[in-house]
């Protein structure tokens, strides 16, 4: 009797990969038998070729807010990094407006705009606080990198 033992344990192999709509990744797997499968790298489920996209560096979401008097004395609007803040901008539309940037406070001038923008693929480690009182009003724009 002859026993054939296949000692050539060749395994599946990831050939190449890329990105899918929604943030997952696709991977092209060559099976042991020479066939190919297109899978979702995060789940192992089959990927739809129609969902293949060019890999983005990420997505960003913009928030716009206007700070006006909410209570009779003062109002505040705070921004913290959360590991995603990539841009912020504060404009004093009506005085008084006080801006605090990482612990440094100053009274803004009328129509003054203070803004900061991180370079590509970087984020801001900033803590920003805008305070108004009386007739003060400020517009605030911020942008964050999205976790998708």
């Amino acid at each position, binding site marked *: *009797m*002859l*026993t*054939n*033992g*296949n*000692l050539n*344990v060749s*395994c*599946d*192999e*990831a050939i190449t*990969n890329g990105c899918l709509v929604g*943030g997952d*990744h696709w*991977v092209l*797997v060559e099976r*042991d038998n020479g066939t190919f499968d297109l*899978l979702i*790298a*995060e*789940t*192992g489920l089959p990927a739809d070729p129609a969902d293949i996209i060019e890999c*983005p*560096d*990420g*997505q960003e979401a913009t928030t716009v807010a206007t700070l006006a008097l909410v209570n009779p004395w003062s109002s505040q609007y705070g921004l913290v*990094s959360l*590991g995603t803040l990539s841009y912020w901008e504060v404009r004093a539309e009506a005085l008084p407006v006080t*801006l605090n*940037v*990482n612990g*440094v406070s*100053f009274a803004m*001038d009328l129509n*003054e705009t*203070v*803004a*900061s*923008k*991180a*370079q*590509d*693929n*970087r*984020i*801001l*480690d*900033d803590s920003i606080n805008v305070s108004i009182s009386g007739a003060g009003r400020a517009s605030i724009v911020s942008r964050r*990198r*999205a*976790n*998708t």
Partner: protein
Amino acid sequence: MSTNVSFSTCCPFQLAEGCTTTGGRWVSIRNADGTISVVDPATGAAVPPANVLAFCQQGESLSHVTTVGPNSVFVIPNTNDLESWSVRARTAGVSIDVSGGGANPMDVNEVIESEAQDDDALSDVVTITTDATGSARVLWLERL
């Protein structure tokens, strides 16, 4: 008779990789049994799906702001990598010198600014000088 070796003898292999919300990296692994795991490549610990980022950040930057009052000379610090800077003259009596190019008087509310491209840093030496009535707002961004 033949003996077939099943895929269960195969080694796990990496499918994809990326960054996490905690500053680390993740890799997705196809295990020998066909299941998929997302793990920290440094520790092998499982990475929760909520910690998986679609992007890899390349670092953090910190904004600084100061108000330059009358009769002052202020040089924007450039000890760490300087990403950008912006100077606004709040009043008359403000001049700016960039890297020894000479003092340039600024108009009221004039803004002069510069920003490095991509991963570059600025080598600028920016000096703001005010006279007895001058005031300027200075913002700069440094890499951490």
